[in-house]
Structure formats: C-alpha cells, structure tokens
C-alpha cells in the first residue's frame, strides 16, 4: 500500500537532481575560484604595487569570516545596498567562488614560496623572463606542492556548498530537507544524503591523490 510518507522511485530522481545541482555549483565555483585565486597569486608573484596588499587584505576578509555570513551579505545585502537583484543561484556562485578563491590564493602563494630562490635564479641567469620562469620552473613545481592542500580544500568546499540550501537553492541538502519533511524518516534520509556527499568527497580525494602522484613522479627514486 502506497502512503504519503513512503519512499518512491521518484525520490531517487530528486536526489540525483539535488546531487547534480550541488556538483554543478561545486564545479563552477571551483573553476572560478581557481582562476581568480591563481590570478591573485600571480599578481603577488610579480609584486604589483597597491594591488598585492589589496588582494591580501581582501583574501583575509573572505578567509576569516563565516561563509554563511558572506552568503547573507551577498543575497540580502547586495540588493539592499546597491539595488542589484541576485537570484539564490547567483548569490551562491558569487559567494562560493570568492571563498574558494581566497583559500586557493593562500595555497598558491605558499606553494610558490616553497620553490627555492635558487630555482628562480638558475632560470633567470640563463635569460628566461619572469613569465617563462613562472611557467616552466615555478608553476610545475608549485602545482605538485599544492595538489595535496588543494584536494583537502576542495573536499571541504564540497561540504560548504550545503550552506546554500538556506537561501533556497535546491541542492542535495535542500532535497534532503524536502524528503525529510515528507517522509518523516530523518535517519534514513540524512544517512542517504550524507552518504552521497561522502562518496563524492571520496572521489575528489582519490582524483587529487592520483594527480599528486603523477606530478611528483620525478621525485621518485628509481635507483641509479
């Protein structure tokens, strides 16, 4: 007998849709965050005056305040202050991209700084330009250094996407909420939702570990 509170096969489609929204938001904000964060780090590498301290200050702000507060600021604050209407999805993309960018900036800066001065000198001395040094000598080594922390960050940022459900984006968590209210079986619903996040996070971590192994292949000792 079918009751209002029982699970239906349609619920799996709902869950899949929610997961899709979460993943899409995660992917888009990660890409934008990577782009902005590394651009900031490159600006810092060139020691651009004025811009560099400005970026550092802005990244500090984003890094040291709760994402939820940032989300409210964008979703409720922006329309109130600048009369710009932002949809929940827009607010989510702006907030999560900015937040991810700030953390990627920190990782990229420390990765670049982990490359010894001797590496930069030995390339500069052969006449490579600052850009060529960055592209051929610094970036590949910094990337190998950054993949570990970056993977950790992305696993965390995936979980952070669940916050956007509070402003009405129908992501995996929001679907969980809907199913929970209808079925009144919180233990089952949230276990399934949690499990889906877990599997996705695990896949990200796995991908990161693989990439790291490949980027660090050159340090592997293969014997003389």
């Amino acid at each position, binding site marked *: 007998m079918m009751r209002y509170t029982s699970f239906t096969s349609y619920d799996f489609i709902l869950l899949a849709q929610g997961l899709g929204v979460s993943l899409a938001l995660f992917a888009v904000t990660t890409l934008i965050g990577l782009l902005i964060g590394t651009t900031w780090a490159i600006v810092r590498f060139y020691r651009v005056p004025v811009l560099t301290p400005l970026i550092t200050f802005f990244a500090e702000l984003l890094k040291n305040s709760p994402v939820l507060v940032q989300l409210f600021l964008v979703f409720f604050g922006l329309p109130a202050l600048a009369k710009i209407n932002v949809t929940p999805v827009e607010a989510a993309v702006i907030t999560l991209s900015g937040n991810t960018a700030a953390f990627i900036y920190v990782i990229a800066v420390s990765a670049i700084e982990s490359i010894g001065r001797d590496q930069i000198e*030995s390339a500069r001395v052969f*006449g490579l330009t600052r850009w060529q040094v960055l592209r051929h000598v610094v970036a590949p*080594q910094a990337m190998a250094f950054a993949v570990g922390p970056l993977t950790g960050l992305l696993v965390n940022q995936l979980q952070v996407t669940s916050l956007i459900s509070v402003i009405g984006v129908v992501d995996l968590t929001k679907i969980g909420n809907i199913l929970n209210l209808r079925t009144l079986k919180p233990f089952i619903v949230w276990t399934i939702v949690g499990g889906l996040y877990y599997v996705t996070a695990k896949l990200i971590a796995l991908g990161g570990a693989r990439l790291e192994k490949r980027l660090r292949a*050159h340090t592997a000792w293969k014997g003389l």
Partner: protein
Amino acid sequence: MLTLLGKVCDMISARGVHKSFGSATVLDGIDLDVSVGEVVSILGSSGSGKSTLIRCMNGLERLDGGRITIDDFDVSNPKQLAEARKRSATVFQLFNLYPHMTAVENITLAPIQVLKIPRAQAEAEARALLDSVGLGARSDAYPAQLSGGQRQRVGICRALAMKPRYLLLDEITSALDPEMTAEVLNILAQLARTGTTMVFVTHEVEFARTISSRIVFLDKGRLVVDLPTNDFFASGGGMANPRIAQFLAKMRKD
C-alpha cells in the same frame, strides 16, 4: 681599427666593484678583466667575496658601486643584462637543476625559450653534450635519480648548451666528494683544452694551477693579487704575500 675595437670588447670587465650586505662590505673596489680564451681562477678563503663577484657578473646581485660589462653590455642595465646573460652561463655550487625536468629537459629549457632553437635541434645538441660528459645513457633521468657528480655534469651541459662565450663556475665541486670532484674536474680540463673561457671560483688550488692562465686572489673583498699562474705560485710572486702563503699552506694541509 675596427677589428682592434672589436677585440677590446671581447672581455668581462669589472671596474671598482662594490657590494655590501647591510653593514658588511663584501666586495671593496674590485678591478678585473677576463678576455676571451683565458681561464681565470679566483681563489680566496670563505667569505672573501669570490662567489659574490660571480653573482655580480651574472646579475644575480645588484652592484652598490662600480661597473661590470660583458662584451660591453652593462649588467646593471636591465636591458643590457639580457644580452650579457646570453654571452655568459653559470654553473652553480649546488647544481640548481630543475627537479621536475629530465636531464635533457634541464639542458634544453633555456636554448628553446631564450635562444629560440627548435626543440628537435636543442634536444639533439643536449644529448650530444650529455654523451660528451659520459651521461648519454642518463639523458632521460630526473635529477633525483642522479648522483651529485652526475648532477653537476648535467649542470655543466646546461651551461654549455647556451654556447656561452664565458663560463662562470661558482665553486662547482664544493658539494662533491673527491671521486665526484674528479669526474667534474676532468670535464673542466677538457673544456680548458678546447679554449673555453672560464671564470673559475674554487678551493681546488692544485687543479686551478693546472688549468688556469691567471690566478686572482681575493681577501676581505679586495683583489690582493692578479698574476699569471706560474708567477702566482713562484716564491717571489704571489707566495711573497703572507696572506696567500698562509692560505695555500692551509689548503694543502686539508
């Protein structure tokens, strides 16, 4: 007349070079010329300013006074520095190879990026260079897979691949054990025979004696002596200077 003028330019020329780090004066008015075809060894105890002098020549340190030109290109002028750097190549004490690149990639990076040599040609040249230093079989190894002596030989190939007029060698055997030192010095002897111009900062006094045309002795940032090799080691020449005699005696003891 033109050829004469041309000849005048064919040298590294340092005039009144001053360099200090904070309150410590490291180079205190150095005058030194190195002409094409010469092998000039720079001796001196640690802290005498030898390495700093090389680092001023290749533009890694900014001069606080004086002037260094390579074939008339002023290393203190950012635009001329690029040209000066094309004419000289440095081998470092700690190799400074790029760890994420194979031996061949280490050697071809600058020729491809700076000299715009086609990749295939640059690679062929790199392999030939590695062959000539006995590393043909290790061409595709990463630095982590090479011994210290092998790494330094790659370092030398990397410098030679730029076809420099002047080879700047900054204590290139200081981080190597005697056996590996011998590997590297053999290559230098070979290069000296083929007429490569070298500025050789070193602690290997006996080896410097065999390959150098001139010996320069630095002490506390000043150039104490600049003599043809035979005169330097003659009792009435450099040895007459107590500071040098003391230095040589200490080196021979070690």
